[in-house]
């Protein structure tokens, strides 16, 4: 999540309107799910090209794909074998099915990652807010988002001081140190929350966290271009 956030903030597409990026990413996702496997390969190619065009470092992208890939491969492995009356044997059609599944799932994952590595989570929440998500839910989500980073810094600092005092050598000590870290983090988080409340109150907090969010109106022409791209990928993919 932290890696995604860093990529999103440094992405070349960071300031592009959310609507354009969401249309492209979710459109590709829909195509990945609905098109036949060969179409999936096309979708995967387009999504990868787009992610690289947005300035995502290839290695970082690969690392993000690795985790869901492990799940996909485990799922695909089970397609390779068949359990019949005479025991377990390799399936005749299993290899093709497994390949199709991997391709389709991978295309779907990269399509969605395209949005994640070009748009910070906070902006996604603000986008949902415009689509009708209630202000309360959006505020809690944004505060959580902000707090994750503060807590991560705190956890990293505690972990560093534990390591410096040999608290993480040997699994027994490591477990003990991790337990202490978690136990420390909760009161720290509550204390932080209280101090944040003081800081907000000083600026006239009255129960709602209103701020001026940057507005990036989508251009109709660009949205149309994205739509044309999606349609042509869809048509080519279905025909392949």
């Amino acid at each position, binding site marked *: 999540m932290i890696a995604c956030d860093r990529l999103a903030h440094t992405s070349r597409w960071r*300031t592009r309107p959310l609507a354009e990026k969401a249309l492209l990413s979710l459109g590709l996702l829909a195509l990945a799910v609905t098109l036949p496997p060969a179409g999936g390969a096309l979708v995967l190619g387009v999504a990868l090209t787009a992610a690289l065009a947005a300035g995502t470092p290839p290695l970082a992208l690969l690392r993000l794909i690795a985790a869901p890939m492990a799940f996909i491969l485990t799922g695909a492995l089970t397609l390779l074998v068949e359990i019949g009356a005479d025991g377990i044997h390799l399936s005749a059609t299993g290899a093709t099915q497994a390949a199709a599944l991997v391709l389709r799932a991978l295309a779907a994952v990269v399509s969605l990652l395209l949005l994640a590595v070009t748009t910070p989570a906070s902006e996604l929440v603000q986008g949902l807010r415009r689509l009708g998500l209630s202000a309360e839910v959006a505020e809690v989500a*944004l*505060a959580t988002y902000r707090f994750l980073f503060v807590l991560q810094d705190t956890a990293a600092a505690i972990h560093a001081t534990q390591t410096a005092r040999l608290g993480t050598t040997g699994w027994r000590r490591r477990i003990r140190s991790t337990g202490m870290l978690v136990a420390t983090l909760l009161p720290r988080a509550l204390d932080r929350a209280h101090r944040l409340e*003081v*800081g907000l109150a000083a*600026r*006239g907090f009255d129960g709602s*966290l209103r*701020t*001026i969010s940057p507005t990036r109106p989508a251009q109709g022409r660009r949205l149309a271009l994205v739509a044309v791209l999606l349609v042509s990928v869809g048509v080519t993919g279905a025909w392949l």
Partner: protein
Amino acid sequence: MAMILEAKGLSYAYPGGVTALSGLDLGVQRGKRLAILGPNGAGKTTLLQHLNGTLKPSAGTVHLDGTIMGHGRTELAAWRRRVGLVLQEPDDQLFAPTVFEDVSFGPLNLGLSEAEARQRVIEALNSLRIADLAERPTHMLSFGQKKRAAIAGAVAMRPDVLLLDEPTAGLDQFGAVHLLAVLEKLQAGGATLVFTTHDVDLAWAWADDIALFDAGQVARQGRPEEVLADAEALSRARLKPPFLLELGLKARQRGWLGADQPLPRNRSDAMALLDGI
């Protein structure tokens, strides 16, 4: 001298029962820079949080322009509109995804329109010289940048009094000098500044007025050359007189500096004094 903010007989104990303030009196002169000087753990932050109504004293009153301030909802809102607070730890203050959004929080709470609020944000970012950070996420800033963003959040509300808790703590020398220059500009624009510090040298170099805080009370308040030369009172608060003040007094004693000439308050004053010997 006209007082903009006054504390009279403030008492406060922490929830554990430890006394923080015991009958404290303090006056803040309009348009001046007041340093609340005291050692670590003396309760300076607690005192500051009384001055904008965050904490409610068990006894005593806070007066803003002579009016006793109450802790009701509407009174607090009016109070905080005029008295801004900047916490020591900027992470306690920054909550929004980007600097611009965070700074816009206060102005919107003042009830300004979005256009007016936007104008205020731009002004505040410019005065803190962080306009280039506007779109940056708050969690990807350095400590010094976070500090300036937090101050911009308070400045954008254009308070009459700005309370700053240890403003230079954690900043490098360049960052501290830069910040003080920004604060001087705010003061020139009419703001009154109150800051806490345990740094006697900073207090000597920069404050117009000093309140020495010790054992829950203001032990002494007055002009820097009076309060900071009181070695006995300082030592009770576990502090020492500032080096440049001692140097200046010594120079007067030796006759190198006339009794009517000002004491050196910064490096260049001291250098000029040495050159004159």
